[in-house]
């Protein structure tokens, strides 16, 4: 014989207050318990049934509203713990939008400022020298003066260094000088930063020229006979019109070259940090007693 079902109120309480996974087993347990009590001549009427149902369902109802304390699960692997931390961080960030926005903005500003400072330092200090192929083999020699500053050395001294120091494979001299240039006869001259260099200057630096050629040894020894100028790409484009054959005047402050006309024969693309012009002339009077030097070490 099939047992009597539970009273409808008991079934209603179970369905309203119990977790779904418990409902069927609670009904079965109460039916089983009720029939055992009846078999032992114990009370198991409607009130007993409602009271028993209330005790079970309210206990579970209250229990489910309590929060279990957080405990680390046993035997958590490293990657499993990491992924749990990442998920927790993501949930926390999503839950606090304003904090997340502030953190992201702070990070963005910090990263941007760092990138800007690095780019500035890289531009000023770290980037390769323009026009130098073997940068690790090139050093700039600065000679100290009695007052603690850097001074100039004579061309004979540079020649003696090249001969006496075997560690230097080759040595070239240069001197900064300002020149006034008029691209055409009669035009207003413009002041340019320039260098007077020795004939092997570009051989030491090793940089290729975009057009034409550099200086020859003979041109460096006797520049007055065959004056040669190498100009920057910017000067060539802006002041000389970018033509392949140009003629212009170089009017230097140097007494030896004042008023001379120099034929421009060779052009070179260089960086903006480069001087606009270079003139061969290690034997010119203006630098015969003083120059700086660039050496290539072996």
């Amino acid at each position, binding site marked *: 014989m099939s047992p009597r079902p539970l009273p409808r109120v008991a079934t209603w309480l179970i369905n309203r207050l119990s977790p779904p996974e418990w409902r069927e*087993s609670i009904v079965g347990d109460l*039916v089983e318990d009720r029939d055992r009590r009846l078999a032992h001549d114990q009370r198991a009427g409607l009130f007993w049934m409602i009271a028993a149902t209330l*005790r079970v369902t309210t206990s579970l109802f209250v229990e489910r509203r309590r929060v279990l*304390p957080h405990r680390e699960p046993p035997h958590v692997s490293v990657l499993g713990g990491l992924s749990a931390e990442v998920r927790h961080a993501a949930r926390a960030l999503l839950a606090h939008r304003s904090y997340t926005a502030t953190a992201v903005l702070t990070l963005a500003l910090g990263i941007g400022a760092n990138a800007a400072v690095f780019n500035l330092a890289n531009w000023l200090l770290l980037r390769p020298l323009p026009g130098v192929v073997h940068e690790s083999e090139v050093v700039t020699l600065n000679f100290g003066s009695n007052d603690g500053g850097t001074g100039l050395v004579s061309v004979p001294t540079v020649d003696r260094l090249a001969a006496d120091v075997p560690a230097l494979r080759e040595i070239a001299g240069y001197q900064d000088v300002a020149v006034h240039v008029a691209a055409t006869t009669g035009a207003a001259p413009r002041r340019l930063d320039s260098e007077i260099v020795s004939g092997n200057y570009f051989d030491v630096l090793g940089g290729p020229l975009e057009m034409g050629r550099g200086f020859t040894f003979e041109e460096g020894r006797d520049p007055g006979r065959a004056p040669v100028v190498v100009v920057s790409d910017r000067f060539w484009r802006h002041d000389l019109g970018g033509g392949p054959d140009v003629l212009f005047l170089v009017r230097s402050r140097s007494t030896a070259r004042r008023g001379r006309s120099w034929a421009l024969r060779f052009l070179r693309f260089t960086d903006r940090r480069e001087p606009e012009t270079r003139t061969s002339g290690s034997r010119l009077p203006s630098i015969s007693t003083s120059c700086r030097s660039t050496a290539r070490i072996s």
Partner: protein
Amino acid sequence: MSSFSKTGLLGELEQLVILAVVRLGRDAYAVSIRDLIELRTGLRLSRGSVYVTLDRLDRKGYLTSRFGDPTPERGGKSKRLFELTATGRRALGSAEQAVSRMRAAGPVRS
């Protein structure tokens, strides 16, 4: 008394229920667990205490459950049968060791 201890130690009632599940084997459900505890200890637990403890141990991962076949004696309803998990076995061992170490420290003074 049941426990929500943050140390992970089991409460007394939790230990009794787990031990009953182990003793009952594949026929451990709320009614049989309550009967066994009464039979072995003389304690007649309320139905609510047994259900709450089973539910809590299940949520902690110490017990796992499955539904048995429906039977006419239960009005065609299934039993929710419980088994001990490896985590529950470790938790029971830890609780027993803690008590054993405390007892090994010397006699209990009143």
